[in-house]
């Protein structure tokens, strides 16, 4: 078995404009997803929007530059993740395609294993 991180990328502007019905519906979808896939799930969290993000880069003088915002600005931003366990990529994709992401999609990344 391998672990895969399912990264949820969505349009934050669309979420900002979404009404309480949308929030409620998506929350229910996530709960249902969690119940349907509890054997595969190893963890997961929702993240606060990128407006709350802080990025740190090393600068040329060896110090750190701290900036407001996400590391890379994109229309669809990382908004949450699930950690899942699966036998192969097909199994991981079968779980990942059930993840609710009404304003975007998900990216599936195998977790590196160090011996």
């Amino acid at each position, binding site marked *: 078995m*391998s672990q*895969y991180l399912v990264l949820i990328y969505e349009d934050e502007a669309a979420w900002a404009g979404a009404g309480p019905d949308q929030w409620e519906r998506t929350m229910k979808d996530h709960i249902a997803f969690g119940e349907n896939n509890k054997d595969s799930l190893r963890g997961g969290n929702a993240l606060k929007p990128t407006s709350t993000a802080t990025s740190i880069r090393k600068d040329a003088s060896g110090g750190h530059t701290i900036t407001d915002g996400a590391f890379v600005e994109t229309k669809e931003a990382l908004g949450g993740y699930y950690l899942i366990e699966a*036998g*192969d*990529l*097909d199994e991981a994709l079968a779980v990942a395609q059930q993840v609710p992401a009404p304003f975007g999609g998900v990216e599936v990344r*195998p977790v590196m294993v160090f*011996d």
Partner: protein
Amino acid sequence: MAGEAEVAAAVADAHRREWAFVLAATVRVTGDIDMAEECVQHAYAQALRSWAARGIPARPGAWLTTVAKRRGLDLLRRDGAMRRALPLLVDDQAEPGPDDLAGGDSGDERLRLVFTCCHPALATEARVALTLRLLCGLTTAEVARAFLVGEATMAARITRAKKKIAGAGIPYRVPAPAELPARIDAVLTVVHLLYTTGHTAPVGDDLVRRDLVERALDLARMMRSLLPDDADVAGLLALILLTDARRATRVAPDGSLVLLADQDRRRWDRVAIAAGCALVREALERRPPGRFALMAAIAAIHAGAPTWQDTDWREVVALYDLLVQLWPSPVVALNRAVAVGFADGPEAGLAELDVIGAEPQLAGYSYLASARADFLRRLGRTAEARGSYEEALLLTENSVERDFLLTRLEELAE
């Protein structure tokens, strides 16, 4: 003892016919594609020596598979710790059983490899490249030519794709029946490209690479037997049969190129045409028809026309109009422009070529230049036609095509 030439021919033949089978079977032992390729190359090198000394085996594929698998097991034993640290393919059969060493069925093993190479998690270009290389044993340079990209780019693409298969855990198996239809188009694209690569070989002294054409036909037939009700599979098999029916007439006895317009239609393979037409009818029953069914329908019009002059070019253009919508590829657009040139005259064809001429993907494509040259020649614009033939000459490395273009240039000089 077998003669050197005889052995070389037998090894070349086995390379053409058995590469995919040997590699697919070896992957089951090594669990790693790169390592399996190394083992298969070793087996073919070994065959050259061993067959010269002990004779050519009755079943070369089985011989090669046994040697390649043994090599794999030796490597695993020798470098066990290091090799096991590599990410292994996710296989539905964890340990190689006795059948794996004995040989086994080729079709299923090859399909396993086909579907792994054509997994939707790989970029389309990578799927086709991997399958050409791993199933057909094409060199990276040949795969690069088929894609109109440089060799270094292709080498990087293949390496990246292999790393993704192992690293992301793309499973090494034939998909379940429910998944099959969704996975089929990528496979058919591979088979189709394989066929077009063989139909007019990008490099070399022969116009047609019979090996590739026949491998594509074998794969298309195998897909047909696996999915007898799939319209796209029927369409692709029809397309290959109908186009390949003209194979014997595309090259004159002196090796020079014979255009469709000048081919001896009495020598077309009527058995293949009949089989192809039956498949086209079956494939066109689905609405809307798929791209292979449309291409096969175009090929069927040519196959059914008693002469070039009697070709129903309006119907050909109408089918290309549908095809371009379904499959907006620059090469399809080029073929459509050529058909317009025959339906409405060279002036109209030239205008269509100008529309698609800026397409960067066609920049290195010799057929764009040779199509333009032909229209200009028919319009009597000799100097411009010469320029376009010269451009086409720079872009093809197939000597039969080069000779044809040189002949046209000489005719225009007179």
